[in-house]
């Protein structure tokens, strides 16, 4: 750790985090107050302001749970539970993470593939792009159940594809969820990569022409390196989208496992604290994933002679 990591990273992050938490507490009191007042008046209680605030922060099903309630829930469900327990957020987080990563991998491949086709083939550029856009306007939650159910049935059914892949039912469930992540993550990658692959200055392309470089060579030696900044920016968006996809994909599986199932289960029973705990874990996961992509981007940039700002 460099000496100024503390000054440059930890101090700002904690300060802003503390500020957010303070705002959160205020909001929690304000939002939970009407219901508390309601309860008190029905119970005929007249608490002091201090007691009242205390109560708004200790409701079992608050509109906005207080940070410490969420923290306690997260703590109980991560540290205090065995990893394999159905109630462990670590377990659910892992389930979600695995399909996020798988879907992200597929999405990257698909997105890059499409971008390559679009950049190299005029017919593709003109005919494919509008339909890629259209595909993204389909509300996934509407078709997610169909996709997950149908692909799960296909993967576990009696057909050529299933025999070829020969996945067991857990793997099939994973893949069918990951398809939703793929669907959400390929688009940012495709759009970013089309831009990135077309970003080299014209003189650089001219240089390649003078060498009569093949399209492949121009691609690998010029377009790809030039697209790296765009790639990493898109990857950040894509991995976040992929996580959202994984969570959405978990809903139609009947809330069996994953952050999504925790959210859903929480919302059936208005267990807002559970919901927020799952949200917090999901967000932490997202933060870590995006940070990892960012770090990878920095390392690659350095290796490519990137100039320190």
């Amino acid at each position, binding site marked *: 750790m460099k000496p100024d990591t503390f000054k440059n990273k930890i101090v700002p992050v904690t300060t802003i985090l503390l500020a957010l938490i303070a705002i959160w507490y205020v909001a929690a009191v304000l939002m939970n107050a009407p219901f508390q007042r309601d309860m008190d008046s029905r119970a005929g209680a007249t608490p002091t302001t201090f007691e009242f605030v205390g109560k708004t922060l200790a409701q079992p099903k608050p509109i906005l749970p207080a940070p410490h309630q969420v923290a306690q829930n997260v703590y109980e469900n991560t540290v205090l539970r065995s990893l394999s327990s159905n109630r462990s957020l670590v377990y659910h987080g892992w389930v979600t993470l695995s399909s996020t990563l798988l879907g992200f991998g597929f999405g990257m491949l698909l997105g890059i593939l499409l971008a390559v086709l679009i950049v190299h083939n005029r017919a593709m550029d003109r005919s494919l792009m509008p339909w890629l856009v259209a595909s993204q306007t389909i509300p996934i939650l509407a078709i997610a159940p169909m996709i997950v159910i149908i692909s799960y049935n296909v993967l576990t059914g009696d057909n050529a594809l299933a025999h070829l892949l020969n996945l067991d039912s857990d793997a099939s469930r994973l893949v069918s969820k990951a398809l939703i992540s793929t669907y959400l993550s390929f688009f940012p990658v495709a759009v970013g990569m089309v831009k990135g692959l077309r970003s080299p200055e014209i003189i650089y392309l001219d240089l390649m022409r003078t*060498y009569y470089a093949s399209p492949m060579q121009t691609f690998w*030696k010029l377009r790809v390196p030039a697209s790296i900044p765009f790639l990493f920016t898109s990857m950040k968006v894509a991995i976040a989208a992929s996580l959202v996809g994984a969570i959405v994909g978990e809903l139609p599986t009947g809330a069996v496992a994953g952050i999504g199932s925790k959210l859903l289960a929480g919302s059936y029973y208005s267990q807002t604290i559970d919901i927020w705990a799952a949200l917090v874990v999901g967000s932490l996961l997202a933060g870590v994933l995006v940070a990892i992509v960012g770090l990878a981007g920095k390392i690659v940039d350095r290796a490519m*002679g990137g100039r320190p700002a």
Partner: protein
Amino acid sequence: MQAPSVVSAKDLCLTYQANDGPVRALSDVNLDVRKGDFVSFIGPSGCGKTTFLRVIADLEKSTSGEISINGMTPEEARKARAYGYVFQAPALYPWRTIENNIALPLEIMGYGGADRTRRIAEALDLVSLSGFEKKFPWQLSGGMQQRASIARALAFDADLLLMDEPFGALDEIVRDHLNEELLKLWARTNKTICFVTHSIPEAVYLSTKIVVMSPRPGRVTDVIDSTLPAERPLDIRDTPEFLGIAHRVREGLRTGHSHEV
């Protein structure tokens, strides 16, 4: 017997379509460059020197007229990797070290292993950049970048060299040195060289043929065949013959400028 023609342009015209109307960059250019020629192009800024080289290199399509390179169309010549091109700006890839920038054409053209390493070392040595192999372009000074880009074009074997002001950002000493080296290389390999420069002495010192151009629209106003001997020590620049040719070039340039400045 005359050497075979390498570049031959007939009534070549090129018009750029800009946002505010067409720009006539080349107008009825007629030129014949023969194998082994060292042709310098000289002319005011904006007269179409770069444009002409770009047409030869098949980076720009002429609007009318004819041009052939080694008897082929520019496109065929490019695909035959007939030439090496030094751009006016260095155009080094920022993500490659100097060494790898020079390796780029070698990779593409399939020069492998030890041959590649040797060529890179030789080219770097030629432009006095040994020791800077591992640097990235932004860590070099302007002149060093330009030299790296020259090294890149010299690292592979092309019979035709197109050089667009390669020595513009270099001091006199380095420039003299590179002039000598280029002449040696030219004599040794019998390459054909098309060379854009703004320095009249440089043009006269190097060339077998000097093409004077004038702007708006770009056209060739004078083609001077050098009467200087093939063997040219640096002090040839003080001979009356040299000064005579230089004078003729200067006059040509001045008329080209007459209607502006």
